[in-house]
């Protein structure tokens, strides 16, 4: 039709087209930003689904090579993904304590922490001065211990609740509190009273916000907790959906993107996408395998030194996930392991030379060995020379991720930065290769 227009009319037509395209692009950008903000709760579950699909994509090719059709390859991988996801949720559900267990853990951890601190610092009843370690570091560590101790202190409200659990378990509809945990609680209370006499620190007031939230009789808080769990779970339902959609996609998304490119950038766009895909795939799959190996090593070693299977698995999963964070990851694994070692009692190690009553040294040795294996074997063989980041960027990235998206943001910050780095570097390299810049 444009063949019948004069050159002036054609110019006007091009101008109109430019205005319409600009307005459409503007509306699309504004809508996109609004949706991103409104649906920000979905970002982390979606990204995790995308990452898992991305990691699994080569498996589709492998399964096809082994004679599976696209349909059965997707069904097989989706089945495994759902199995792993629901096993993890079930394990997490089993490990979330009820109110009685939470109070028991609080009493147990507080008692054990105090006992372990006194033991390490040489602060027994007959030796109030402390050992050399206490002389050197005691002043620095004491405020930290006091803070943790304060955070773990069972308030008056919860003390009454704990007493009811102990004295009338039938009325509370639960098993009786184990005697040793009750004794720990009494010992903690005794220590509080002694402290109160010497420092006049009042016990936690009854109107403490945390206590009100924890109160057994507060049905509203229970229902809101259930509601928030339901909301969180329903948001995470998008993860398997995204995973499935991307597996089924079979490259259509990429083809559509390439199709929308002008001829001039067509070949360059596909080359850039492929280069990004290769670099990212190497990094993400390498990191995933490395985290899996570290997590599995943690689980096996902790099981060997006597931890219960569920706790060994849970700590293994946390340590494996945290391993995705350079520098900070191993510290998180160490922290979780040490915290459990302090609380652990009456463990029965499979290795004969481990002292079941004192797990702390064994856990420290396990963490050290796994870090050594990770640095000497897993990283060089699995990750190779995948892209590296400056430590300062890692620290800022992890902090920023934690501020914006919490723990998940902490885990995903470094992969996100790596993706950004690889994408930008590849785009500029290709721009130069195709003489665009």
């Amino acid at each position, binding site marked *: 039709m444009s063949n019948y227009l004069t050159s002036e009319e054609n110019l006007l037509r091009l101008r109109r087209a430019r205005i319409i395209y600009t307005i459409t692009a503007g509306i699309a950008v504004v809508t996109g930003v609004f949706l991103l903000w409104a649906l920000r709760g979905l970002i982390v579950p979606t990204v995790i689904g995308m990452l898992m699909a991305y990691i699994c994509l080569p498996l589709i090719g492998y399964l096809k*090579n082994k004679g599976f059709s696209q349909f059965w390859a997707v069904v097989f991988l989706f089945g495994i993904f759902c199995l792993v996801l629901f096993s993890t949720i079930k394990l997490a559900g089993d490990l979330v304590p009820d109110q009685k267990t939470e109070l028991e853990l609080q009493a147990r951890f507080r008692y054990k922490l105090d006992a372990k601190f006194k033991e390490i610092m040489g602060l027994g009843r007959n030796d109030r001065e402390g050992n050399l370690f206490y002389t050197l570091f005691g002043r620095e560590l004491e405020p930290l211990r006091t803070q943790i101790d304060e955070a773990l202190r069972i308030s008056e409200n919860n003390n009454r609740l704990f007493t009811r659990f102990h004295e009338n378990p039938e009325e509370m509809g639960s098993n009786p509190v184990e005697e040793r945990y009750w004794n720990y609680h009494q010992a903690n209370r005794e220590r509080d009273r002694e402290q109160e006499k010497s420092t006049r620190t009042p016990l936690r007031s009854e109107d403490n916000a945390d206590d009100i939230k924890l109160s057994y009789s507060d049905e509203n808080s229970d229902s809101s907790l259930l509601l928030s769990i339901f909301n969180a779970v329903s948001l995470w339902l998008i993860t398997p959906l995204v995973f499935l959609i991307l597996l089924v996609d079979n490259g259509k998304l990429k083809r559509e993107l390439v199709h*929308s490119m002008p001829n*001039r950038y067509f070949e360059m766009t596909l080359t850039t996408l492929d280069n990004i895909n290769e670099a990212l795939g190497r990094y993400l799959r390498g990191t995933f395998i490395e985290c899996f190996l570290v997590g599995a090593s943690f689980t096996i070693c902790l099981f060997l030194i006597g931890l219960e299977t569920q706790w060994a698995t849970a700590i293994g999963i946390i340590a494996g996930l945290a391993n995705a964070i350079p520098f900070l990851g191993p510290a998180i694994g160490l922290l979780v392991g040490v915290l459990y070692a302090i609380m652990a009692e009456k463990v029965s190690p499979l290795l004969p030379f481990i002292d079941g009553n004192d797990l702390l040294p064994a856990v420290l040795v396990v963490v050290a060995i796994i870090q050594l294996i990770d640095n000497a074997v897993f990283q060089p063989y699995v990750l190779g020379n995948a892209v590296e980041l400056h430590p300062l960027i890692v620290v800022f990235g992890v902090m920023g991720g934690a501020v914006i998206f919490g723990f998940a943001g902490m885990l995903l910050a470094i992969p996100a930065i790596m993706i950004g780095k690889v994408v930008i570097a590849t785009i500029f390299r290709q721009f130069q290769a195709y003489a665009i810049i």
Partner: protein
Amino acid sequence: MTPPKATMWTSFFGSIRRNRGKDDILNFISTVPLFDSLSKRELDTIHSIAHHRIYREDEFIFRKGQPGAAMFLIKSGSVNIVDQDQDNLTNILTTLQSNTFFGELALLDDSPRSASAIAAKTTETFAFFRTDLDRLLNSFPQIGLKVYRALAMIIGDRLKETNEQLLNK
């Protein structure tokens, strides 16, 4: 008058119009020597990695020196393979018509293009990328084997022709 210059938006909206019948495309692909040994099912798989592009008259398909990434099949129209010197003067080496292909060496590696390709008139093409074919080789080795065998035979034939031309000089 030449069609309006292709932009991202015209390409996007144009993609809806350019959606051709699949059978038509499969019939065309099956006539190209590179794919003529493939079964209908295998052609269907090849079709899933083909990129449909339309070039205006005098529009560059690729330029000499750019990294090679794709091979092009000409469905309709014609393409000039040209050599540009330092003063940007072009020397047409050959003109390719429909049902032929060019840029096939890009399926082997990403070495720079030895010549430029320009659409002599409005030309409809299908592009196949090396990386897509490599992935296909992993998932369907029998298809990859047939394609690369055909490619080797075509390159061998061209080498023979070049040798004969050199001997006849």
